[in-house]
């Protein structure tokens, strides 16, 4: 089926089988920030935005994204870099595999709620798994970022 996608603002037309998911479509188009983790909507590493909402791309049928606005981390590098500086300053990053999905959740949260409490942050990130860190470092980084943002 012919599907017209709008990826990070660029119109892209692809041919997709009915059971193709966006994870595969996006990776084959070269958007390699989108990772395959559990492939069962449990880990968060394949998270992308569709019309501003964070979704797991491993379960989102490509056909359903016809004429929808898709955003991957490639399209949000400036915003991501600002937060990433706090995360790397805490020495959290080890393998980095979860980072793009984690960042996509975080950016969706800040779009909805620019000044969340740490409880709201933890609730929002509950679906993003990281096997290296134990999450404490990320939480410290986000707390510091929010503190600075608050001014």
């Amino acid at each position, binding site marked *: 089926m012919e599907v017209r996608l709008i990826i990070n603002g660029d119109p892209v037309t692809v041919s997709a089988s009915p*059971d193709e998911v966006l994870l595969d479509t996006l990776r084959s188009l070269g958007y390699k920030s989108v990772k395959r983790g559990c492939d*069962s*909507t449990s880990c968060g590493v394949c998270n992308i935005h569709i019309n501003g909402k964070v*979704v797991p791309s491993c*379960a989102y049928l490509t056909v359903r994204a016809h004429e929808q606005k898709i955003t991957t981390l490639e399209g949000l590098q400036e915003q991501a870099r600002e937060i990433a500086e706090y995360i790397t300053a805490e020495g959290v990053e080890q393998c980095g595999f979860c980072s793009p999905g984690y960042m996509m959740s975080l950016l*969706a949260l800040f779009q909805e709620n620019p000044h969340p409490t740490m409880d709201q942050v933890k609730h929002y990130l509950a*679906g993003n798994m990281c096997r290296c860190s134990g999450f404490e470092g990320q939480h410290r980084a986000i707390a510091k970022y929010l503190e600075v943002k608050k001014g």
Partner: protein
Amino acid sequence: MKIKELSRPATLDEAYGQLKENDKAVILGGGVFLKLQQRTIPLVIDLAQLGLDKIELTPDGCMIGAMVTLRQVEIDDRLPDALRHCVRQIGGIALRNLATLGGSVMGRYPFSDVMTVLLALNANLHFHKSGKMPVQHFADKGLNEADILVGISIPHVKGSLFSAYKPVYTDFSLVNFAISKSEKYTISFGAAPGRAKRIEMEALADLELILSSFTFGDDRRASGDYRRALAQSMLEDACKEAKEWK
């Protein structure tokens, strides 16, 4: 999961016609559980373009479209507390932006937090062909013939709450519980580990009587005794809160 053909009907009649024509057709809600199934489906019917993603207040309560996502439910302050709270720990927010309320109902999942709450809220299901059906009837018997869930209506309640025990924040519940008050109290326990059941009580006096109306069984995640102890604790906490419901 393999899909041979996917249709995106523009009207409910069209979707229903396709469902009746092909007895192996499957309705697509959010597609989260469908994705996990190891089978080939000849026809998947996508309901995304039928405008079933609205939450509306009605004179009796509210009407929630079958394609409303769990995240929409979570953030809509107009909905009963029990319903908003029960979706908060179902996967992460990304999953809840995809998973639909209709999909949570139609799977008749024994572990469902949503079904336990809909039972306690005396909800009704609205089908395209069969019309209105109490959620209890559907939970017990399922459907006689293929049909499409259009929406879920919930009458006004004076108060409601949900609680569950999850070993990990986004885990499946070891046991879940919901209670509401309208004229009477409606109480339900689910994931015990069987499908949720509900009872009605005039008063919350005899907690042993309430607990003895439910079956708490063993599985590899927990024993029946453990589930019953959790259930008792949830019920005791709820009774304190329920005193405030006028």
